[in-house]
């Protein structure tokens, strides 16, 4: 069963990189372009061990490869940040107390859009779905300030669309990014 949840880009008139912390969007129909239809360039592919040091190396390499491919600094950084958040989630949750195996990463480019595909054989997402949109409450005393809980908000805010499905013991996450704004 798949769950597809778009980010904010399709539901705001402004550029998704406008960075305004607005309300989380209502769900919309699945994005048929994740993964891309028609030919796309495989810009980056790797298998990365789900631990922070390996993730850092993979994210850095991905950003550099995108620049070589011709992406501008903002687009490469957008992809790197989303990739970092998603891989950190896999490391922290999918493989918690589980023997790690490498995570497959592919980044494709087509007509200015970037398509990330991440596949891991860790635990499924709780409830078989992406987490509900939320931001931690900041109206708290300093001692109670959150030290996490922003990852999915960042990904949803930066992505045009997200798709998660569990198939054959594998988590498959696909993300479409449009660094230049809504497609």
């Amino acid at each position, binding site marked *: 069963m798949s769950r597809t949840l778009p980010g904010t880009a399709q539901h705001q008139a402004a550029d998704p990189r406008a*960075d305004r*912390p607005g309300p989380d969007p209502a769900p919309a129909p699945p994005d048929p372009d994740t993964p891309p239809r028609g030919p796309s360039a495989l810009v980056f592919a790797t298998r990365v061990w789900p631990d*922070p*040091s390996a*993730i*850092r190396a993979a*994210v850095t390499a991905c950003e550099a490869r995108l620049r070589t491919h011709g992406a501008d600094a903002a687009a490469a*950084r957008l992809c*790197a*940040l989303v990739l*970092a*958040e998603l891989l*950190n989630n896999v*490391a922290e949750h999918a493989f918690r107390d589980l023997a790690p195996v490498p995570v497959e990463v592919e980044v494709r480019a087509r007509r200015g859009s970037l398509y990330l595909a991440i596949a891991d054989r860790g635990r499924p997402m709780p409830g078989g779905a992406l987490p509900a949109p939320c*931001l931690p409450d*900041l109206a708290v005393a*300093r*001692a109670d*300030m*959150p*030290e*996490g*809980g*922003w*990852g999915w*908000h*960042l990904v949803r*805010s*930066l992505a045009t669309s997200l798709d998660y499905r569990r198939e054959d013991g594998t988590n498959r996450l696909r993300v479409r990014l449009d660094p230049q704004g809504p497609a």
Partner: protein
Amino acid sequence: MNLDTESHADALVIRVPETRIDAASAIQFKDAMRRLTASGPDRVLLDLARVDFIDSSGLGAVVASMKQLRPDQTLALVALTPAVHKVFHMTRMDTVFDIHGDLGGALAAGRS
């Protein structure tokens, strides 16, 4: 992680010499901040001019560093690069920290 420090009359400036604060360095960053701020002055200024990548793990480490301070201590951020400022803004954490564009302004703010 090695952090550089600079002592002023009424503030301790802590400068991050690395370009990333992420999951790979979050714990070391927190530990280094705790050691440096434990016996320091009330004002701590974290200079992030060299940092051009921060993810939610790095953000959490900065928050944790603030929570490690004494009740009378404050942590303000200085010279955020656009990429880092964007992450703070998207998570609304720019409402939690005082953020200064440069060190001169940050130091002056403490004296006014």
